[in-house]
Structure formats: structure tokens, C-alpha cells
């Protein structure tokens, strides 16, 4: 915005105009109220409430104009900001890792449970980040792979009576296969069209899960899914020699199982992170990023765009499947209603909010969004409102996410942060 000198009259006129707009918006929304009475609905007017809102808008606009006029000249450039965030990120990352590793030592069962939930979404976010952040393929149906992983584990373990650790890779691979299957039809699609087809794919999986009753149990889902074991040691209070408590001669407590689950998902999430970080520095990951930057140039350089896209879908789906299997074993029960579109939207907003392609950003965003909604549990009815406002404010202030910018995958000298404006967002 150009620095135009602000006269008090102009400011007042601007504020009055804003108030007028606010009046148009709110005169019916807030000024009128329908109350049910015995004789039907009664319309009452609330001039006081309307006046308060309009007053707030007027004063708020004046303050905003004042701030714009008086704040010190020279705002920090986005580039500097990005570099600052990255420099801070170098310390924030390890600190958070340390906190995550030691969390069970000083927190109760509730916090650990929330931690498990947050880490599940961190893992989902990191998995989706491969598809959306690196390869630039907008995927609105990521929950499909989460569901495939969860149901794979649920059905394999209850049918063939195999444990979590045996079934986990199978569940992941099955999800990856579905990733490739989704990949094939959408290879030619870009941007909005890709998003819509992936959205439909997510819904198809859910609808199949609901309707294929004799295979998936339909809306009733699959229950009695076995819990994970630590090298064969169960986490139950039965006192048998193959339980954790009896083997280590410690008194049994329910928390042990939660702590174990917590470390399992922490391990899985860190694996996702490690693999994505490794892949980014390898030709495959670089090809994904090149694909996001310019698909046509990729073809001209002899990169097989088909294979590259499919591997991105498969890798993303693999980790989605792992997370799904973990979800199934944690809950002990899966049903189609856990895999609705809102889950895809949530994971995608975690990735977008965190900053496409940024591992740390995604983790922070998952913490804020999942942990945050847990925090606001007491204000149940305002939760989604706060959530929505936070998203809007965030996108206005930092349109490219919490941690924007990109670290080069290879460098001759020192790695310099690349400003987010140069990095393409991908058109699918």
C-alpha cells in the first residue's frame, strides 16, 4: 500500500464508510432477533447490540489507520522474515524433538493421549506433504489412504491373527498400491480438476467401506482389533508372563500402553520425516520438486513424468497407510465415519498452514490445529469459529504458511534459503 499522508478528515471518512458497510452487513444479522413464542416466531430488534458492533468497527478502523500511518517506516521484507524463521527453526526443531521424546516422563495420561493424536496428524501431514508440498499435486482425498491402511490392518489382523508389526508394512504397501491406482487416472489432470477427482476418490473409498458389508462390516466397522505388542509383550493387566508388567516386574497401569503407543507413533512420524528429508536430496525427490516447478521442462529433460507422479502418490499413500494402521490399533475399532472428507481437509490445511514443503512448519501446524482444538474443548460451540478465524488471519499474515521458503537440496557453498515467492505452488 502506498504511503499516502493520512489527514484526520480522511481517516474519519474512511472509518465512517467502514461503519456503513458494517451496518449493511449486520443490521439484519445482529440488529434483528427471532424468538420463538407460543404464537409462533416474534421479531425483536436489538439496537444496542448493533450500536456496539458498529462502534467497535468505527474505532477499530480508526486504530488500524492510525497504526498504518504511525508505525515505523520499513517493514521487514518477507525474505528476511523467512530467513529469520528458518534460523529460529534450526533451534525450534531440536527443542520440539526433545520435548516430544521426553513428554511421557512428565505428563499424565490425558496429555499423552493428545500427544498421540497430534503425532498422528503430524505424520499424516508429513505424508501428504510429499504429494502436495514436494510434487505439487493437490490431493483432497488423502483420507482414502488413511482408511485403506486402517482397514487393511483391521481386516488382516482379525482374519489372519497376525500382529501389528507384521501387518503394518502390508497395510502401508496396500495403501501405496491404492495411491498408484488413484495416480493412473489423474495423471493428465492438473490443478482444480485433479483436486476434484482426488476428492471423489476419497469419497468412493468411504462409500465402499460403508456398503461392502460382508467384507468391511459396513457402518458397524471392525472391532476387537489387536493392540500392538512390544516384542511380543502385551499391555494388559492379566498378569500373564507375556505381559509387559509381569515381564519387567512392574505394577500394571493403563498409562504404560499409552506411553508405548506414544512412542510407536513418534517413531513412525520420525520415520516419515527422515524418509522425506532423505528423498528430497535424492534424484527422485528433486524430480518431484522439478515437477512442481515446471512439468513441461521436466519432460524436455527426459524425466518420466508418469513414473515420477506415481511414486509421489505412492510414497504419500504409504505413510498415510502406516498412520491408518496405527489409528486402527490405537482405537481397537474402525468404522467408515472416521474417514470423512473433513479429515482430508484437516490434513491439507495442516500442510498449507505449515508451509508447503516445510517439515517443521507442518509439525507446528499440526500441534496448533489438533492440540489447539483440544485446548478449546471447553468452548465446544466456538471451536470451529476460532479455528476458522485463525486460518483466515494466518493466511492474510503469512500467505505461504508458517514456515515458508525452501532449503536447497544440494549446494556448493552454504545452503541459502530460497524465498517463497520464487517457489512454485504446483498446478498438479
Amino acid at each position, binding site marked *: 500500500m502506498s504511503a499516502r499522508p493520512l489527514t484526520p478528515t480522511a481517516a474519519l471518512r474512511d472509518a465512517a464508510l467502514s461503519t456503513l458497510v458494517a451496518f449493511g452487513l449486520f443490521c439484519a444479522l445482529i440488529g434483528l432477533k427471532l424468538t420463538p413464542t407460543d404464537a409462533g416466531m416474534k421479531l425483536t430488534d436489538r439496537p444496542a447490540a448493533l450500536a456496539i458492533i458498529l462502534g467497535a468497527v468505527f474505532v477499530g478502523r480508526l486504530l488500524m489507520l492510525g497504526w498504518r500511518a504511525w508505525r515505523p517506516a520499513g517493514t521487514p521484507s518477507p525474505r528476511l522474515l523467512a530467513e529469520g524463521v528458518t534460523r529460529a527453526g534450526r533451534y525450534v526443531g531440536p527443542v520440539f524433538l526433545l520435548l516430544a521424546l521426553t513428554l511421557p516422563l512428565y505428563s499424565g495420561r490425558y496429555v499423552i493421549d493428545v500427544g498421540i493424536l497430534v503425532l498422528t496428524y503430524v505424520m499424516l501431514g508429513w505424508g501428504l506433504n510429499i504429494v502436495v508440498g514436494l510434487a505439487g499435486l493437490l490431493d483432497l482425498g488423502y483420507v482414502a489412504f488413511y482408511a485403506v491402511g486402517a482397514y487393511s490392518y483391521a481386516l488382516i489382523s482379525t482374519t489372519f491373527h497376525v500382529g501389528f508389526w507384521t501387518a503394518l508394512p502390508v497395510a502401508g504397501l496396500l495403501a501405496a498400491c491404492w495411491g498408484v491406482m488413484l495416480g493412473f487416472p489423474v495423471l493428465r489432470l492438473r490443478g482444480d480438476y485433479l483436486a476434484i477427482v482426488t476428492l471423489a476418490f476419497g469419497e468412493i473409498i468411504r462409500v465402499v467401506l460403508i456398503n461392502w458389508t460382508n467384507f468391511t462390516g459396513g457402518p458397524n466397522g471392525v472391532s476387537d482389533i489387536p493392540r500392538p505388542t512390544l516384542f511380543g509383550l502385551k499391555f494388559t493387566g492379566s498378569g500373564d508372563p507375556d505381559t509387559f508388567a509381569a515381564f519387567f516386574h512392574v505394577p500394571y497401569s493403563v498409562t504404560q500402553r499409552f506411553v508405548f503407543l506414544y512412542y510407536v507413533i513418534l517413531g513412525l512420524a520420525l520415520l516419515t520425516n527422515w*524418509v522425506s528429508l*532423505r*528423498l528430497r536430496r*535424492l*534424484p*527422485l525427490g*528433486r*524430480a518431484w*520438486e*522439478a515437477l512442481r*516447478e*515446471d512439468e*513441461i*521442462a*521436466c*519432460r*524436455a*529433460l*527426459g*524425466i*518420466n*513424468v508418469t*513414473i515420477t507422479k506415481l*511414486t509421489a502418490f505412492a510414497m504419500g499413500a504409504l505413510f498415510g497407510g502406516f498412520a491408518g494402521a496405527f489409528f486402527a490399533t490405537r482405537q481397537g475399532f474402525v468404522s467408515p465415519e472416521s474417514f470423512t472428507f473433513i479429515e482430508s481437509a484437516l490434513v491439507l490445511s495442516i500442510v498449507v498452514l505449515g508451509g508447503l514443503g516445510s517439515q517443521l512448519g507442518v509439525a507446528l501446524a499440526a500441534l496448533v490445529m489438533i492440540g489447539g482444538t483440544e485446548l478449546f474443548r471447553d468452548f465446544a460451540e466456538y471451536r470451529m469459529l476460532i479455528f476458522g478465524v485463525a486460518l483466515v488471519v494466518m493466511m492474510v499474515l503469512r500467505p505461504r504458511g508458517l514456515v515458508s521458503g*525452501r532449503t*536447497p*537440496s*544440494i*549446494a*556448493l*557453498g*552454504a*545452503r*541459502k534459503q*530460497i*524465498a517463497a515467492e*520464487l*517457489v*512454485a505452488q504446483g498446478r498438479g
Partner: protein
Amino acid sequence: MAEPAKLLDVEHLTMRFGGLTAVSDLSFVARAGEITAVIGPNGAGKTTVFNCITGFYRPTSGSLALAHADGRRYALEALPGHRIARHAKVARTFQNIRLFAGMTVLENLMVAQHNVLMPSVANGLLAVFGLGGYRRTERAAVEKATFWLQAIDLLKRADDPAGSLPYGAQRRLEIARAMCTDPVLLCLDEPAAGLNPRESEELSELLRRIRADGCSILLIEHDMGVVMRISDHIVVLDHGKKISDGAPAAVRADPRVIAAYLGEGDEDEEPAPLAAGVG
């Protein structure tokens, strides 16, 4: 002196888009070790020819035969785009620069060596665990990138994002990126567009050097100074048809070429450079 071997043999190439014939029955030959220029007024179909050669369009009819020095032959009209670059070794640049703007200069050159670095997806996944002899290949790739960065004088900016380079440097980088795929034929779509005279001179020097290193060049260019200075052979297109074909001096004197540039309503654009060349 014996004529150099045929590298690319274009025969009866026709490309139609619906009712529009962009290229009609075009035949010409690009020889190994030569710089062949394709020139013509705007809309003559030059870029369409390029897109056919590099697999971005499938020709309506006609054949594009590429012969490597070792005798292997490729029918470019039937190969998918990425195979043309990978196996037939035809690299290209674009009229509107298509660099990976958010990746560094070095990364751009590394992506170009994708097929050397990653023979298969399985190997690519093995490399996650540091297996498969990946490190050695990567070091060689960085060396090759460094060599080309020196050649285009961008070594100092290797770690800067490609999108932040000045225009002329982006053009040079795109050529270097294409060269990192080890092509036998380099197709350049208006490499001198938007360059100042000094930069055009440097570009000519770079192209001569690439030719001397054994890579043949197919060049679309409007800057007649560059074309006349470095081409061994010129093909002139107008309205999708070939109107002249031969050595620079012969083409320059060809009345049909002069008519195409001067006589058919392209006065605003082309006469000055050609006239300079003719004079």
C-alpha cells in the same frame, strides 16, 4: 571435403491443428557437427517443428529420423517426449524460459542429470539408505554441473535460486541445463531473444563452443546477426512451408526469403536485421 553425416532427417513433416495447417510437407536435413538455423517470420511454424522434433506434438504425418554416430536410429515421431530426451538425446530450450525458478542454479543442473543419477526407481529408493553406489554418481554429476556453470560464467551464483538470475543468465542457464543431459542435438528456441548485443556475442561464442565439443545445434532465431554469424546451414519457413534452404550466403540472397520478410506485411518486425545482414 566430404559432407558431414545426416543427424536429423525431416521428411514430409505435416502438422495440422484442426483446420489449421501449421507445418506443411516440410523436409530438411540437419547434419552432425553443424549449426542448423530455422528462420522465418512470426507464425511461420518454427516452434511447431521444434515441438514435433522434441515430442511435445505428434506430427499429423511425415517422419523425423535421428541417427546417432554409433549407428543407432530413432523415429522421433513415434517416441514419447521423455524418451526423446533420454534415449534419442535431443535436448531443448524454450522460447519463454522454463527454468525451475524456485530451485537453485545447481539443482536445475542436477535435475537435468536425473536419468544418470537414477537408473531405476528401485535404485532411487535404495539410495534412501545410502546404498547403490549413489554417492559416486552424485559427485560426478556435481562435477559436470560445475563444468557447465564455469562455461556459462555462473559458478558464483550456483546456490542462488534460478528465478532470481537476470534474464540473460537465465537464458544461458537453460542452455547449460539442456547440455547436462548429454545431447547429440540441442534445439534452441530463440536463445538470443531479449539479449543485449554483448550478451548475444557471448551466446554465439557459447554455441560455437558447444558445436566444437561435438553437439549439433538446431536453432530458431530472429536475431539475424547471430544466425548469419554462426549458422552452417539455414532453413527458411513461411506459412508452414519451406521457402529456402542452404548456406547463409545463399539464403541471404534468395529473393523468396527477401520477399517473405519484406514483401508480405512484416515490415514492422524483420527488415532491419535482415537488411543489415544483406547489406
